[in-house]
Structure formats: C-alpha cells, structure tokens
C-alpha cells in the first residue's frame, strides 16, 4: 500500500489495529506512526499484515503569526549562520529538527530583535563545528567583510559551540584592522526547546552590538547556569570548559569584557581596554588552507616518535605541563626515552618546524626560565616563553602567522601581543572567574 510520511494510515498486525500519522523511521525494521495522543508507536514490520491509507496529508501552511515589518531606522545587523544551532525548529513532517535561516524565520523565533535592530540573516554554509578547517574560517571572514562593507553596525556569527573559541581566535587574526563588533553566538541546548540558551545568547548579542562601542571579535554566551545575563568574552582568551553547561565558556587569564542583559537593559563593562568601534580598515589576512600545523597534548610516558610524527609540519604547538616543562630530561635508566624526545624535538626544529609551548594547565603563564631543562628547550629554539595564550589560540595564531609571515617573523611575532591574545599582566581575580553560585 503506497503512502507517504505524514499521511494518516491504519496498520494491521496479527491481533491489533493501530491508526495514526506516518512518521519517518531511521530503522528499516520498524514502521512508526504518531498516534492521536501524540505518542509515536514503533511497530515491527515483520508483524504487519496490512497497511491502509486513511487520508492523505493536507499541506499545512505554516503561519508565522508575528508581523514582520522591520524598522529601517534601527541599526543594521547581519546574522551569519554556519548551521542550525541557534535557530532550529521541530519539523512536523519529519519529526526531526530543521534549521531556519531567513530574516522572517529568525524574527518569528526571536521577536524581541525587532525592538533593537534591523536584522538580516542567511546561511553561509553548513559546518559541523568539530569538522571545521582553516578554509571555513576564511569563508566566514570573507562573508563578514562582505557584510561590513555593506555598512552594517555589526555581524553575528552562529556556530556549534565545540570549536567556537577556535573560530573567534581565527577571525580575530584574519580580520586585521577590524573596528566593528563581530560576535559569535552558540547554544548548548538546542533551540527547538523552550529551555534553550539560544534565545538569551542571540538577543543579548544583538542588544550588545546596538548599545555598545565595542569594536572587535567577541563571544556571547551565558555567564551562569541562570538565565540572568550573558558574558561578552574575549575572542582570543576564551575556552569551552564544560561539555554541556550553558556557562561552559570561561575567560582565561582575563576577565570577561562585559555582562549583558537585554531584559534588564543592562551592560556592565568589567574591562574597558577593548577596541573602540570606528571606521574599519580591513586587511583580510587569510590562513593558508593547506598549511600543516598541529596541537599536541603532552602527557606522561611519551615516546619520541610521537614528536617525530610532526617532522614535516610547519608548526607544532605543544600543550606543555606546568610552567612549560617538556619531557626531555633523562636522569636514569627509566627516563632514557626523555633523551630521545629531546633529540626528536631538536630534529623538528632543525627541520624547520616552529615549535611553541602553550599551557596544559590552561590557566597561567608559560615561564620557561625556571627550570634548567626549560632553558635548554629555549636554547634549542622552543618558543612560547611568557605566553599566556590558551593552547587553542596558540594553534590558530601559529597557523595564521605562518600563512602570512616568514618563519623568522613568525618566531618573533608568536609571543608578541597582536590582538589581545597575550596579556602582560594577569588579573588576580581572573582565575576561575565566576560571579554567581551554582
């Protein structure tokens, strides 16, 4: 019996009869119908004796009830999507979630935005955050520039949260001369739910762009598990710290730029040395899409060949333990491998690989002057002394430097502050900074 998804059908098994709306099934062994009580009923196909078509599905016109006229006098903001993280809705036809990207759809989901800005919105390309590559950063940067050239006040980029801090760092470096707000927004709870953090994150980002003179790349996510306010976080000094919490993103070695709450009409700046918005003098410096740079995590019991693997890479960031101590000190029979690792790193550097340390401890600064083997590492040419960059930012920065500068220039610039990624003094209150309880 021929029928389509969302047709009303009757399924007959040996002893029972079930009627409902046909639903898509990811498992070919089961037929799934949605009963009138709303529940899905999964029926083993092999038990089905007959399926009858009761009624073909009516085409349902999706009525977007909110009026969608926008106010042209309000500041213009473009939302660029890289996937459905912020604006997904449940699709009645398939039972799955479907992403919505047009301005009309966004305003239907976030009607508050109309009060603050004139919203444009589009999908750049579908990108799964964990599969992102340098070419994606380049694409996003170009699209951002396109919007800025059109004269928008600011741009919001929505992305899956897993690697949002990589993207924010990449955009920071690529968009040289930026003097406009480019805010990344994500959601830890999918936006088809009433409890999603997407709403606050997006609306606060828009509110912030409209009401602030902030002129650089930032991240806007929940500050606490509460739906009270968001943080605007520094693009190059932020990291995802929890697999699932709303307040997963925390600043490292610095404070958040600001707290934002559109509901309380409130922006509180915690720091004020951000770039002030003004005229963009954008020089797009892309990352070479084929450049080979890696980020490697040091651990105990390592082997030299783990390092030698990167012999033909152009750059290697090592998440080094403690103050930046590599496993290169051979003192007895048991640590013979450390001697080999020492030689391996030497070989890498001799081969032209730029080797940079970043803190595995995440918080704090790499200080390579403290232990003798660290000084040996410096002599060898391992870089990163006095860096307080996160490992992820170090990785992105290194790739970007090698794409746009000579090796020698890279060696100098890697530990120079270019976009706020390296601070010369760490605020004592920044360690595990959190304002509220839970």
């Amino acid at each position, binding site marked *: 019996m021929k029928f389509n998804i969302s047709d009303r059908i009757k399924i007959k098994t040996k002893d029972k009869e079930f009627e409902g709306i046909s639903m898509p099934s990811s498992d070919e062994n089961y037929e799934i119908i949605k009963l009138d009580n709303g529940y899905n009923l999964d*029926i083993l196909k092999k038990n089905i004796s007959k399926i009858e078509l009761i009624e073909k599905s009516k085409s349902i016109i999706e009525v977007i009830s909110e009026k969608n006229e926008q106010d042209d006098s309000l500041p213009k903001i473009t939302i660029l999507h890289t996937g459905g993280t912020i604006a997904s809705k449940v699709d009645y036809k398939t039972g799955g979630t479907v992403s919505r990207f047009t301005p009309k759809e966004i305003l239907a989901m976030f009607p508050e935005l109309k009060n603050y800005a004139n919203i444009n919105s589009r999908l750049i390309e579908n990108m799964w955050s964990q599969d992102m590559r340098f070419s994606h950063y380049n694409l996003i940067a170009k699209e951002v520039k396109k919007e800025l050239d059109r004269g928008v006040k600011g741009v919001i980029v929505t992305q899956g949260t897993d690697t949002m801090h990589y993207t924010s760092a990449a955009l920071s470096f690529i968009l040289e001369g930026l003097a406009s707000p480019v805010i990344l927004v994500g959601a830890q709870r999918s936006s088809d739910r009433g409890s999603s953090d997407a709403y606050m994150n997006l609306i606060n980002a828009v509110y912030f762009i409209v009401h602030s003179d902030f002129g650089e790349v930032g991240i806007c996510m929940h500050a606490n598990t509460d739906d009270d306010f968001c943080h605007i976080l520094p693009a190059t000094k932020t990291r995802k710290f929890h697999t699932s919490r709303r307040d997963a993103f925390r600043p490292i070695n610095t404070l958040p730029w600001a707290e934002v709450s559109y509901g309380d009409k409130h922006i509180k700046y915690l720091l004020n040395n951000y770039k002030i918005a003004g005229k963009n003098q954008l020089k797009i410096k892309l990352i070479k899409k084929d450049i080979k740079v890696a980020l490697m995590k040091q651990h105990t019991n390592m082997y030299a060949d783990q390092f030698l693997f990167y012999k033909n890479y152009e750059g290697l960031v090592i998440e080094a333990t403690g103050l930046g101590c590599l496993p290169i000190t051979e003192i007895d029979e048991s640590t013979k491998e450390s001697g080999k690792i020492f030689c391996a790193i030497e070989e890498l550097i001799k081969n032209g690989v730029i080797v940079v340390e970043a803190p595995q401890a995440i918080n704090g600064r790499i200080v390579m002057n403290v232990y003798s083997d660290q000084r040996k590492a410096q002599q060898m040419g391992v870089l990163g002394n006095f860096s307080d960059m996160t490992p992820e930012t170090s990785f992105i920065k290194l790739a970007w430097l090698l794409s746009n500068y000579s090796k020698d220039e890279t060696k100098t610039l890697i530990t120079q502050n270019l976009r706020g990624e390296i601070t010369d003094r760490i605020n004592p209150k920044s360690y595990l900074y959190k304002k509220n309880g839970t």
Partner: protein
Amino acid sequence: MELDYIKLGLKIGLEIHQQLDTHKLFCNCPSDLRDDKPDIIFKRKIRASAGETGSVDIAAVMEKEKGLSFIYEGYSDTNCLVELDEEPPGALNLEALEIVLQVAKMLNAKVSDRIEFMRKTIANGSVTAGFQRTGLVAVEGKLHFDFGDVGVPTILLEEEAAKEVESTPDIVTWRLDRLGIPLIELSTAPEIYTPEQCREVAAYIGMILRSTGKAKRGLGTIRQDININIAGADRVEIKGVQDLRMIPKIVEYEVIRQKSLIDISKKVPQKIRVSEIYDLSKLFIGSDSKVIKNALEKVGVVLGIKLEGLHGFLGQEIQPGRRLGTEVSDWAKARGGVGGIFHSDELPKYGITDTDVENIKNMLEYKDGDAFVIVADLPDKSNRALYGVIDRVKLLPKGVIKQVRKVNTDATTSFMRLMPGAARMYPETDILPVVPDLLGIKLPELISEKSLRYEKEFGLSKDLAQLVAKSEQFLPFEKFCGEFKNIKPAFIAETYLKSEKAVKHVYAVDIGPSDEDFNILFSALDSGKIAKDSILEILSKNKPVNQVIDNFKLMDDNMLEDCIKQIVSKNKGLPFNALIGKVMAKLKGKADGKKAVELLNKIFNLDQNYSKSH
C-alpha cells in the same frame, strides 16, 4: 441532591501517576524527596516554542503572556546536572521499565515492539528542559469489575516534574528533588459511570501498583486525575486527587458544576457582548476598600468592563460554596496573576460602597440586566485579567469547555488552565529507543491475592492479613514465619508490625527497631529463652536488642523450681493465690508465667501434702 448519573450521561476516565521506588529515570540520582534547606538555587525563563505540528502550543502561549521567571532550588548531593538541564539525559533506568512492563502484563496490555521516548512541551516551568520525557510502553490493557470492563488504552513511563514550592504573580519557585523520579502513568477509557465506581477503580489500580513492591510511598507519591463529563459537556480534567475517599464527592460536585453551567448556557444571551475596558481609577480615590487602596498606592489602576445581559449569573452557585463569579475570577487570576476580581452580583461589599457601584454603573453605561466586573492591580496585569474574564464569559453559551481544573480541599474544583492541544510532542532524540525484553517479566503477586494467602496459610485474621500484605514488611514477615515455627504467625505479625505503636502507648518511648532486632527477638522467643510478655519491655529500652536481651533471659527449669521452692518455704501459711503474687513479683518476667504457676501448683501441693502428713 440525588443525581441520576446514568440519565446525565456521566462518563469518567482515570489517569493515575505513581512514582516508582528506584533511582531517577534518566540519571543516577536517588529519588529522594526532601524538605530540608536546598543549597542550589538558580533562575530561568522558558519560552513557548513550536511542537511537532508546527503550531505553537496554546497553553504555552498562555504561560508566555504571563512573562514568568522560574526559580529552581535543589540539593547538590542528590541532584545532578541532568536535573539542572545542564547535561543530556543518561541511559534509561531499566529497573523502572521492568516495573512498568510487569504492570502492563498484569493488565494484559500489548507492549510496544520498540519503546520510543517523546518530548512533551511544558512551559510552566515544572520541568527545567521545557519538556517532559515520556514514553508509551503498552496499549489496550483491561480491568475487570462487577459493573463491567474498564479499558486501559495507554500505559506510560515518564519523568516526574519538579515540585512547586512558591508562586507569586511574577515568579514561580520549583524544587528539583522530585524532578526526574520515574512515573508510571495509567489511563483508563471513559468507561466508569458513577462516583462510587470511580473510587473502586482508583483503589484497585492503586493496589495493583503497590503489588509490584516498587511503588514509592508517602504523601504525593501517587496522583490521580479524573477526566469527567456529562452529556453536553466537554471533557474536564481534574488534577491532584490525593485521597481515595474524597473521590465520590469530587465527582458529585463536578457533575453538579457541569450541570449548572449547561443550564446557564441555555439561559444567557447566545452571543455575549462586553464593553471595552474602562479605567475607573479616578472613581476610587479615597476608597475604603483595602484591595483597591493597595493597588492604587502601588501605581495600579482599577479597570472595569460591562457584561451585557449577565445580571444574576455571576452570583449563581454552581458548586457547593462556589459561584460562577469564582470561576470567572479563576480565569482572571490565571491570565493576569491578580489576586481576584469584584463583580456586580456581590457588590456593595469589601469596602466598595453603593455610591461606588452607582458611579461604576454610570461610567460603564450600565443597563438593567447587565453585570460588570472590576479589577484593581498594576495596569498590565489588570488588563490581562480582564481579557481572562472576557474569554470566560464569552464561553458561557458553550456550557462546559475542555479544561484542566484542580481539586480544592472541600472537594470543589478551580480552573487551572486550558487543555493543551495535541501539538506538544516530538521524539526525544537524545534517548535511544528500547526493545523491551518481555520474556524476563515475572508477575508479582497481587496484594489482594497475598492477603487471602496469609489468611489461609498463616491463619491470620482478614484485617491482620490485609495489614501485612499492604505493608512493606511482608517479605521479612514471611521469612520469620518460615524460620520460627514455635511462634504463632499472628503473634509475629502483631509484634513485627504493631510494636512501635504499642511501646509508644505503654512506655511513651519512640522506638525504631531494625529487622535484625526482630530476628534476635523471635529467635530467642522461638527457643524459649525469653517470655512473650517481655518483648515490649525489651523493645522499650530503645537499644539494639542484642545489648539488652540477656537481662530478660528466662530461668532454666531447675533454677525456677529452686526459686519457687524457696518462696513456698519462706511463706508457709500463705494461701495459694497470694503465693502466685509473690512468685510473679520475684520472677519479674524471667520465667514463663504459665509454667511458673504449674510448678507452683505442683510444689505447693507437694508441700501441703508433706505438711499434712507431718
């Protein structure tokens, strides 16, 4: 009032939610219900969002209009990130599923080939995720009663919601200890026709659930909702029926209410006309009414509307102690979060004078036969409240519409919210569907069957048998009976189940003996080492039994004989009954009374004979 329920076309369906005594459904937190001070607190908002059919859920919109914030309180040692909606759900609690499968089997229901969990949109804040996770386990069960069969169309396994602890007009506070506890939900078909049948069905279902041995006990662990309508009325769901004994009265009052509303629907104008909303604030400057004074002080307003042709209806009683005006007030409260309304049928009253009423009537252009409603609160809330009033009175010609109501302590009901539409459920893709294992399901013994068995097997009286069968202690009871064959099962039952009360009564001490304590007691009694009469005293010491039991050890027979001989010889000449007294006083329970008297008798007679012969 004697109601002819059959003639009225009364149809009742039951919906029972029972908490299960296992850890939570989608995480490993214990299902501990608590009332101590919580140490977690956070604040959230929940938005109305679209369900699977693309339309926004009506009830969710109503919640949104209220603009509520939610405060959640929890316990860091028994709540985890899943309850905070900060972590995806864990694996399904298979023990809970097994319990539901047992019930399904007991009801001869058809279990799903594969159980799929759904998200049911709930925007009132009672679930932190904005939806409840619920799964259909079985369909088409059946219950058999003398009055007929009652179908059980669905058997569900789902998460319990958080517990409301406080509700102000702008913020509702929820407690997370309850959130996520597994619930079995049984719904019956509307095949129940009288209040008494309803009670019977509810009691029977409760018994079946308790027979699994895994029904959580305590206040609020079972919730009964009654779906009820008479002919001409839409289905009304009454939530939160706790006490089985109240059920017949609740049904009766709801039938009266529905009948009253249907009668009213025939008498009111078939198209209800209301005026626009008027601002009456200036009429009340200097008013004596506390409510109005309060509102105006807080920069509130007094708003009013005229309801054409509705004079006398609001004051009409539709349930014992509740008028139509109370109904309308419920709607106003639900929409606007106001404390209440005033209506023309009850004024002048509450500090609102005759003059006030005249002024209102003038401003509203009142005509004979009209009614009016006024409300005093903040402008936004007052407006919304009156929209609620308008919505409700416009429905008067319809009689009884689909709605959800809650039970009051006097068995009447109050409006809670409109019945949410079906557009509320979509698949919970974070949980893998489960193929249930039906072969491993063992049917538990029904409590009713167990009770009969106890009467037959252990010779317990009907009351005692039921007491034990219903209790949580039936397993240890059976064990004790099997092990200690010298003690009568009835005595074991009485002792095991009623000692705490008895000790409290006799010794004014609160005790909490463990099963091990009883084990030692029964063992000693079984082997004759202590007397039956000592048991309560031993327990009253309120110490572990093994620490005190030696003091109560009975004398062995030789010692007993010597002791009695001594007493007899020291008390020559005393009559037999007095000697009994002396012996008992001396023994102080250290010997079995009957045996002592028998021995005394023997020794006394011997002694007498001896004396006589000498």
